[in-house]
C-alpha cells in the first residue's frame, strides 16, 4: 500500500485502493477508517508529509514511530535553544533529546536540520550549552560542533539561496528540493567537506546527487553543481564544474520576485 506520514502531526495515512485509513502515534496498531472528506481537516497546516510506496502495515508503523521521534527531537532542541523558556525546562529538554539521540537515525536527522541554516538571531546557543552541561555530554558535543561550524553553515546556506530560480520548475519544486536536501543530510555533508582538507568536489557531488536520486528531481545534478561551485572555489581556490551560462531567453525577468527562503 501507499502511505503518507507526518511526524509533526503524528499520523500516517494508509491508502489501500479506494480506501483510506489513518494510524496515530499513540496507538499505531489501531486503524481508523476515514472518509476522503476527512483529508482537509487531517492535513490542516501539515507540510512535512513523507510518502512511502508499496510498504506494509508494520513498516508504516515503524516509519510513523521514527518520524514522530524525529519531530519530537527537533521540537526539544528548539526548546533547548529558546532563551524565553526557563532553565529547568531547557535542561529537561536536553535530557529528553539525549534519550532520543541514542538512535543514530534521529541524531542524523537533527544534524541535517540544524546544519542547514545559520542559527537565527533569537537562538541562544550559550544558554543551550549551559542547559546541556551535566545533563547530556552528547547534546553538549552537538551544540559545540554546531557553534564551531556556524561560519561554514552560513557559506553553504548562502550558496543554496543563490542557486538560480530557473533551475527549478517553480517555487514548490525549489522548496521541496530544499526540504529533501535537509532531510537527507546534504547540508552537514557539504559543511564537513568544506571544513576537511583533501576533500574531493567530485566525490561530494556524487554523494549529494546520489542521496537525492530516488526523488526524481528533474535537474538534481545541475542544482548540486551550482550549489557546490562558489563555496568550493572560495575555499580551495579550485573551480568545480558549473553549468553553462544561462541563455538570455532563460533568464528571469528583472522584476520577477526572488523566492524568499526562510
Amino acid at each position: 500500500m501507499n502511505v503518507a506520514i507526518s511526524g509533526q502531526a503524528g499520523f500516517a495515512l494508509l491508502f489501500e485502493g479506494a480506501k483510506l485509513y489513518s494510524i496515530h502515534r499513540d496507538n499505531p496498531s489501531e486503524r481508523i477508517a476515514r472518509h476522503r472528506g476527512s483529508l482537509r481537516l487531517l492535513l490542516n497546516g501539515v507540510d512535512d508529509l513523507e510518502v512511502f510506496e508499496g510498504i506494509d502495515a508494520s513498516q508504516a508503523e515503524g516509519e510513523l514511530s521514527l518520524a514522530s521521534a524525529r519531530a519530537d527531537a527537533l521540537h526539544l532542541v528548539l526548546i533547548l535553544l529558546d532563551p524565553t523558556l526557563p532553565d529547568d525546562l531547557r535542561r529537561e529538554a536536553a535530557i529528553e533529546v539525549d534519550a532520543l539521540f541514542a538512535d543514530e537515525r534521529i541524531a542524523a536527522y537533527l544534524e541535517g536540520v540544524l546544519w542547514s541554516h545559520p542559527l537565527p538571531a533569537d537562538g541562544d546557543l550559550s544558554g543551550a550549552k549551559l542547559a546541556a552541561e551535566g545533563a547530556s555530554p552528547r547534546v553538549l558535543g552537538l551544540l559545540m560542533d554546531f557553534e564551531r561550524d556556524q561560519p561554514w553553515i552560513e557559506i553553504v546556506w548562502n550558496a543554496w539561496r543563490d542557486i538560480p530560480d530557473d533551475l527549478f520548475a517553480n517555487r514548490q519544486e525549489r522548496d521541496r528540493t530544499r526540504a529533501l536536501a535537509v532531510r537527507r543530510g546534504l547540508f552537514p555533508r557539504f559543511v564537513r567537506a568544506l571544513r576537511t582538507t583533501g576533500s574531493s568536489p567530485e566525490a561530494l557531488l556524487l554523494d549529494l546527487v546520489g542521496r537525492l536520486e530516488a526523488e526524481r528531481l528533474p535537474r538534481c545534478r545541475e542544482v548540486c553543481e551550482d550549489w557546490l561551485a562558489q563555496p568550493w572555489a572560495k575555499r580551495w581556490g579550485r573551480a568545480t564544474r558549473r553549468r553553462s551560462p544561462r541563455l538570455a531567453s532563460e533568464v528571469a525577468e528583472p522584476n520577477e520576485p526572488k523566492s524568499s527562503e526562510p
Partner: protein
Amino acid sequence: MRAADRPEEVEALDRRYREACQKAEERSCRAVLAEFEEALLSSEAVMAVSLDLVDKMLASGNELLTTYYQLVGAESRLPGDEWDAQRRLADEALFPGYKEKIRFAALSLTGIGLPSYGDCYLVLRDTMIAHRATVFAENSLLFAEEHGYRIPVGYRAPWKERAKVAVAKLAEALEPDTPVERFPSILMTAGPSKLTDRFVEVHIWGPMSIGSISRIVLPRGHGSGVIRRALRRRFFQSGISVELEA
C-alpha cells in the same frame, strides 16, 4: 469572503433559512429554534491539531521556530494521482487560486473540536478571523464531490452569518423539547466510525499566529511533558488561556 457575499449566495441562503424556520414552526419548534440560533451567535471556530503541530502553526514572529520548521516542511502531496486530483478539483471549485492560504476549522459551541483530527483544540479569536472567515454547511470536499464540483449557492456565508447557515442545515434536528445541553452535539457530531463526523466547516483565509488564538484546550497527560510545558509557557507569555480537557 467575496464568493460568500455574492447576491445570489445571500438570496439562496436566505431562502433555505426561511424554509427551515417555516418547517420548524410547523413542528412547534419555534421557541427552541430561537434558542438554538441565539446560541449559534456565540459559536466559535475550533481547529483540532496535534500537540506537536501547535508550535509550528503559531510560530510566526519567532525566528528560531519559523526558520527550522520551514526547512523541513514543503510537502503536502499525497501518494497516487487520484487522491490529489480529487482535492485539486474541490479546491478549485471552492477556493479558486487561493487554496494554499485556507485553513480549516469546525464551528463549536463548547471550544471542543472534532477529536479524530488532533488532540489539541485551538479556539480562534473572533475579532481576528471575522473579516477573513466563511462558513460552509457541510464537509466541503465531500459536498463538492457529490455535486460534481459545481457548488450550488446557499450553503456558505461570511462569518457573521454563521448562525443562518447552521439553522438552515440543522433546524430539522430540533424537537420542541430539545434541551439546550444538546445543542453542541447537534452542531457537531463525532461519528462513531469516524466516517460519519458531521459539522459546519469554517474556512479561514491567511496565516495563523498566536494572536489568532483566544484559548487552547489541551488533552491531559499526552505527549512529552517538556513539550507540553514549553507550549503552556509560550501561551501564558502571550496571554492565551490554557484549559485542560475535562
